[in-house]
């Protein structure tokens, strides 16, 4: 077992949460897979090899919008070593979801983006499969390219679907915003753009599928194996029970494996080939056809009164979801809810639209629409603080929502567990914030110094009215072992380890008597996605609930002698347990009609993060050097503090990438940034020291006080960077990433 009782939390400045006196909870425990990973022995789904296995390849569209006239596979089929060629007509039900806009498995009549899969090939080796795919002849009739999201929503735009290009809209106002803005002493206006961001999980999508007796087993990375079994079953016309997903080990996710069609492509091709098939996307294929973070154009007007109170917020947003519906409308829900941040607002309005274009499909990405709205809101607050001559922390503190209060847009009552104020104060208490003026004064040469701060919240779970639930199953066997099959899956966060920590302390047993399995749909009851910051909160709560069932069944019998207890429970036919944790909806829905709760999906529980960024800007070149980040996190009880810190540091690094270098670009529907040569992500040199502060807290509805935190840590980073840039050189960036060119041009004007 990897647990090491001597292990201390590694990073500086960690506060051990209160109420974490349990034997396992509150200890930093490495991933179960770590040892095999450092030895190179860990077999990822993309390493898997089966006897007699074939290799697959995908023929992908090279143009963004066209009608398919003819596909000729004669030459490909005639190539030595080719075993199967699959077209749209060969897929029993050729859709990835219930509606046409969810996109086809293989394009049949229309190409809607570069990278659309047109055909699948299975051959004796990968090279043959790829050459055969390229030998397929495709005749196309070009269609006008819809390359701009705002233009796509105009009435004269080319419609991608009969119903037009609007893929979703959320519009909500808590009162008369215009009147409130007129009455405001100060109105800050922001008009910003945040770009598409690529996940760059280092393991590209792929895996193996094999059909046996009408059932398929798919080894393929997934953040939502249950959803993928349903997607495969729909496409193949089989029962969901006949599809088994084994979703790991996998190399990273970050949202990319929510919407990934790879499990379905594998199942389709393996069925046609009649043999096990392995397939893996190249980095270029992934960058061209994989989902991105939604690019957003956002306008905000923030009205403030003479006392520095936020009296009105008005945000409009247009998001580009590309041609297919995956997460777009849901991303918009979290954008709307988080558009007012963790603040009280006199009145607020949000009007967001999602547009279909022929650009890269956008889906789920860590933060799920919230970094896009936090950037305009937090930079507006920073600008307001400067204009009013108020400290930016003080201005936020005057308006901060406390636990148990009403949400700034929807007016629903939130959990008492929110610690946004404490989180902000902790970040501001760091010397990097406290001493910023003295530090700035010591700047030398062309390197100007600046420090910025920003705050954000992100809802935990899918939101109210969505029926969100997680489940766990427990078996106590005669050898005295406890096995738990639990939901949201491990894609890098060692969530299975945290489940075991919760189980160990709930049962009062050593962790090594408990085995936890995640990610296999044949064993794990449906528990939803490793997404929405819900795994620790919901999966952990289900594990705790199932452990309590065992305790109840044991009654007065001790767990010290597990084999004896097991024998008794087996004899009583009570040795197997299953529990469901229903994520609590808000009980006071505020301004939302309870009948429409799922339309807005407000959250009861939020995680918070406040961040301080200190950096230097070269006045002559516009170059930015980030020198340090303070990341305070409101995560409730940190079940596995070292893992929480790892999530915080990883999230901040992705936030720095989003702020400073990551920019997925297309030109008239053609992807420009197709590889890691021109799409840059932070290296070890780009990420400074990150001081993670875990704020003592206790979420009443979470397992042992825990809640989700792995998304919110990416949210405030870009706004804190922008505030630091403004502090250093007086330029307020209005688009991301903040590049040297942009800074120089802004300073020149």
């Amino acid at each position, binding site marked *: 077992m990897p647990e090491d009782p001597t292990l201390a939390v*590694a990073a500086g400045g960690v506060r051990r949460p209160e109420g974490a006196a349990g034997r396992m909870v509150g200890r930093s425990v490495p991933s179960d897979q770590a040892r095999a990973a450092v030895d190179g022995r860990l077999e990822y789904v993309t390493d898997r090899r089966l006897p007699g296995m074939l290799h697959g390849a995908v023929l992908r569209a090279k143009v963004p919008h066209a009608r398919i006239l003819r596909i000729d596979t004669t030459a490909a089929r005639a190539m030595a070593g080719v075993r199967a060629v699959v077209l749209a007509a060969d897929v029993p039900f050729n859709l990835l979801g219930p509606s046409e806009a969810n996109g086809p498995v293989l394009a049949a009549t229309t190409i809607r983006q570069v990278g659309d899969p047109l055909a699948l090939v299975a051959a004796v080796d990968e090279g043959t499969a790829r050459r055969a795919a390229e030998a397929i002849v495709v005749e196309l009739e070009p269609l006008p390219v819809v390359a701009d999201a705002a233009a796509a929503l105009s009435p004269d735009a080319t419609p991608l679907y009969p119903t037009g290009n609007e893929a979703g809209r959320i519009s909500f106002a808590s009162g008369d915003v215009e009147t409130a803005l007129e009455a405001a002493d100060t109105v800050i206006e922001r008009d910003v753009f945040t770009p598409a961001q690529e996940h760059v999980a*280092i393991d590209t999508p792929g895996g193996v599928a094999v059909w046996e007796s009408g059932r398929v087993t798919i080894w393929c990375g997934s953040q939502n194996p249950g959803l993928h079994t349903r997607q495969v079953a729909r496409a193949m016309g089989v029962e969901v029970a006949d599809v088994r997903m084994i979703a790991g*080990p996998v190399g*990273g996710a970050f949202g990319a494996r929510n919407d990934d069609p790879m499990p379905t492509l594998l199942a389709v091709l393996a069925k046609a080939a009649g043999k096990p098939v392995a397939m893996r996307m190249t980095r270029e294929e992934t960058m061209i056809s994989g989902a991105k973070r939604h690019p957003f154009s956002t306008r905000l007007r923030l009205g403030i009164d003479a006392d520095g109170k936020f009296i009105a917020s008005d945000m409009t947003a247009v998001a580009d979801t590309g041609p297919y519906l995956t997460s777009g409308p849901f991303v918009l829900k979290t954008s709307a809810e988080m558009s007012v941040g963790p603040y009280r607002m006199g009145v607020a309005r949000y009007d967001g639209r999602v547009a279909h274009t022929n650009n890269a499909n956008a889906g789920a990405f860590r933060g799920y629409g919230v970094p896009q709205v936090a950037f305009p809101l937090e930079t507006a607050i920073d600008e307001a603080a400067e204009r009013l001559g108020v400290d930016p922390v003080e201005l936020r503190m005057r308006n901060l929502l406390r636990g148990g209060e009403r949400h700034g847009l929807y007016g629903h009552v939130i959990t008492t567990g929110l610690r946004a104020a404490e989180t902000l104060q902790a970040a501001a208490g760091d010397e990097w914030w406290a001493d910023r003026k003295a530090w700035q004064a010591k700047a030398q040469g062309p390197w100007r110094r600046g420090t910025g701060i920003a705050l954000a919240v992100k809802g935990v779970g899918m939101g109210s009215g969505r029926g969100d639930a997680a489940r766990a199953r427990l078996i106590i066997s005669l050898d005295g072992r406890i096995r738990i099959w639990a939901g949201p899956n491990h*894609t890098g966060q060692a969530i299975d380890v945290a489940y075991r920590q919760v189980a160990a302390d709930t049962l009062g047993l050593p962790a090594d008597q408990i085995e936890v399995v995640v990610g296999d749909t044949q064993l794990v009851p449906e528990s939803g996605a490793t997404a929405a910051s819900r795994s620790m909160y919901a999966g952990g709560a289900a594990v705790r609930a199932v452990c309590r069932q065992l305790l109840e069944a044991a009654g007065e019998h001790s767990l010290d002698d597990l084999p004896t207890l097991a024998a008794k429970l087996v004899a009583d036919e009570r040795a197997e347990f299953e529990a469901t944790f229903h994520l609590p909806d808000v009980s006071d829905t505020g301004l939302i009609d309870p009948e429409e709760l799922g339309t807005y999906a407000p959250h009861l529980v939020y995680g918070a993060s406040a961040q301080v960024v200190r950096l230097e800007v070269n006045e002559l070149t516009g170059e930015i050097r980030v020198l340090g980040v303070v990341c305070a996190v409101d995560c409730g009880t940190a079940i596995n503090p070292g893992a929480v810190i*790892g999530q915080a540091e990883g999230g901040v690094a992705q936030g720095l990438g989003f702020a400073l270098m990551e920019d997925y670009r297309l030109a008239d529907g053609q992807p420009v940034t197709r590889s890691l040569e021109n799409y840059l992500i932070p290296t070890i040199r780009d990420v400074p020291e990150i001081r993670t502060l875990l704020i003592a807290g206790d979420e009443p509805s979470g397992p042992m006080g825990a809640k989700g935190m792995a998304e919110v840590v990416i949210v405030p980073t870009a706004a804190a960077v922008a505030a630091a840039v403004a502090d250093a050189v007086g330029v307020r960036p209005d688009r991301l990433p903040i590049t040297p060119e942009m800074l120089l041009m802004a300073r020149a004007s």
Partner: protein
Amino acid sequence: MKVNGHLVTSPEPDTRLLDYLRDELGLTGSKEGCGMGECGSCTVLIDGRPACSCLVLTGQVAAAEIVTVEGIAEHPLGPALQEALIKNQAVQCGFCTAGIVVSAAALLAEEADPDEDRMHAALEGNLCRCTGYGAITRALRSVRR
């Protein structure tokens, strides 16, 4: 060619070293993350120097000694480095880890106490999307002490 101390039969000279290691020798610890030498997940030691095995043809290294992540435990400091990465929770998804282990082993063999700049220079070719590099840096510091 020697791989992890064992003489191996000469492969076709135009095979990528990464494919030879993974597909012919079954050493799947070295990973392909980009195939263009950008991510470093396929890093191996060629005569003691780290290189991206996706950019090397076997014909170029026919007489070389190759060490992959599977052989790093035999390397001086290898086990200590691996232990440090585990203990510092520097392994999240673990997919970049093989390359990190190999690059870091090469660095520590060359310089027992590298400063920050040397550490950055040695590891900037290894992309990690999970950790933000903090735990990796702490692990390396704990080994060098």
